[in-house]
């Protein structure tokens, strides 16, 4: 298992390198790192900065220089904020990880419950209703869900009840001056996590239902029932246990994409995470942040994909990693 993990990581190094090179070339072609300075029109300053950043060299050389800096921990300075890029990304990581944690927690629990219910009660009214809801969830643009939730759960209740504060907040993760796990945090967290959960549950429950149906129609389930194992136990211990493997794989793969995919949710709820950092940097043409950002997200995806494969092998011992 360990040797498999190491081999997989080694194998993905060239992919990450090529991806980062392609992105480097594309971003360098699209944005001028010195755009801010060019307004000052002092050729001496521009020439000095350009030499300091190595912009006077060829693009492959610049890439090598940049890559060396990344490996040595010198990620450069943001042209937008003037802060070190590494600490900016580290700071943005924390809110995003919180969103991913809570979003995954609730989405996985709800999606599993829905999957089991839908598969066991296949073609009943409940199954049809849940299936219909998941179709709706898949067809809804996530940002629209977010805006509607703000309207229905925060703004409308405040207006109709005449409250000073909305029952649920929709800006940031904490009120000014507050930190830590408390009611204030929960009131900030409900809407973004709900937005995430709706989209994730919609697609995962479809997948989980199919996996459960697959397991329920298998020979070992029939055998277990024939031997007299209670139905509930067969569903939980045999069918669910076996359908977890494909389910967890899908969850891990989707979770990987959340690092970047939270762009929309963080934008709606003004959460200073990775998605916001990306958008702000993109609008400012801040290539010094964009490139390391892409690299960090790509590495996160590679690691999550590896976790997906390994957890599959752990949950389904019939699979041998090789």
């Amino acid at each position, binding site marked *: 298992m360990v040797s498999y993990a190491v081999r997989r990581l080694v194998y993905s190094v060239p992919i990450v390198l090529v991806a980062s090179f392609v992105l480097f070339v594309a971003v360098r072609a699209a944005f001028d790192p010195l755009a801010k300075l060019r307004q000052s029109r002092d050729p001496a300053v521009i020439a000095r900065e350009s030499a300091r950043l190595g912009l006077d060299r060829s693009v492959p050389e610049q890439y090598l220089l940049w890559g060396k800096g990344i490996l040595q921990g010198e990620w450069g300075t943001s042209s937008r904020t003037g802060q070190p890029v590494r600490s900016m990304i580290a700071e943005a990581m924390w809110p995003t990880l919180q969103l991913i944690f809570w979003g995954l927690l609730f989405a996985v629990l709800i999606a599993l419950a829905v999957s089991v219910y839908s598969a066991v009660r296949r073609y009943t009214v409940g199954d049809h209703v849940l299936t219909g809801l998941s179709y709706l969830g898949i067809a809804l643009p996530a*940002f629209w869900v977010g805006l509607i939730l703000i309207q229905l759960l925060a703004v409308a209740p405040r207006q109709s009840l005449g409250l000073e504060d909305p029952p649920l907040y929709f800006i940031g993760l904490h009120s000014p001056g507050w930190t830590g796990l408390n009611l204030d945090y929960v009131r900030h967290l409900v809407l973004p996590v709900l937005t995430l959960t709706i989209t994730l549950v919609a697609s995962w429950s479809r997948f989980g239902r199919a996996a459960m149906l697959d397991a329920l129609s298998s020979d070992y389930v029939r055998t277990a029932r024939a031997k007299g194992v209670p139905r509930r136990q067969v569903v939980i211990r045999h069918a669910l246990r076996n359908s977890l493997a494909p389910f967890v794989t899908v969850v891990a793969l989707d979770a990987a994409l959340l690092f970047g995919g939270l762009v*929309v949710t963080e934008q709606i709820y003004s959460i200073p995470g990775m998605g916001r950092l990306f958008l702000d940097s993109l609008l400012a043409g801040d290539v010094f942040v964009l490139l390391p950002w892409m690299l960090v997200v790509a590495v996160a995806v590679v690691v999550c994909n590896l976790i997906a494969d390994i957890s599959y092998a752990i949950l389904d011992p019939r699979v041998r990693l090789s």
Partner: protein
Amino acid sequence: MSTSTGIVAAAADQPTPTVATGGARSILRRFARHRLALLGTVVLLGLMVACYGAIWIAPSPQGAQDLVLGPTPPSGAHLLGTDDLGRDFLSELLFAGRISLTIGLVVALIATTVGTVLGAVAGYAGGWVDEVIMRITDLFLIVPGIAVLALALRGLGSSPTTIVLVLAALGWTYIARVVRSQVLSLREKEFVDAARVIGASTPRILLRHLLPNLAGVIAVNISLATAAAIIIESTLSFLGFGVQPPRTSWGNMLSQAAGLVGTDQVYLLYFPGLFILLTVLSINFIGDGLRDALDPQAKQL
């Protein structure tokens, strides 16, 4: 195809009967049995007629303002209300639908064509060609789509053509993987060997013998990719990188209404989203129906 093989070759030229489909009529019958797919087709066709025929169908001309009227909630005169410039919102939505639907359909067609060709070539040719194409699809898997799209559109500008090309450039990898894996198994089948033995050329085998067997996955992919492209375009518009005013799409109408949360005009936020929802839902149902009709053995998710 060589000319020397004569009659045998002519016989082999008959398109291979696909595994479980068999005839356009039975495909249609299976599709029609899927009630939701039928409903989806009707709704989508209705939307397309209304949007592309908006010049004749819409109650008001595009962009016709009535500043004295201003914003009004839905009423008999304006079914979906009017915006702050007094424009009839239903008409605006129908005109905007032209761009949204066109982007969705064209992206799906381009992405599916490119993906099918590259996937089929990779699977059939094997070797280094396969390796190169598949490593490229690996690249796309590790970068977050919405970020790369925003980056590309910010760099290249957001004209509808650019949006279509950029979305298609990122959207072809999924179908390429599916087609490749199908071709890998199909090329070992006897009917491909038979075609090869009597001298059919590689393009001929790909087009006449393999392509018909891929009809199911291709059709399903076109429908799902259309739905995905419409949602992605609206998301990009919301972030400010999609269709730019004065051009309108459902996405940028939504993003303009985003600031109306908590105001009396919040109804303007509901309708563009409902149009997207209706369209995507219909297309997804059609996709399900197509899968059942063209590929009855496929597992239903």
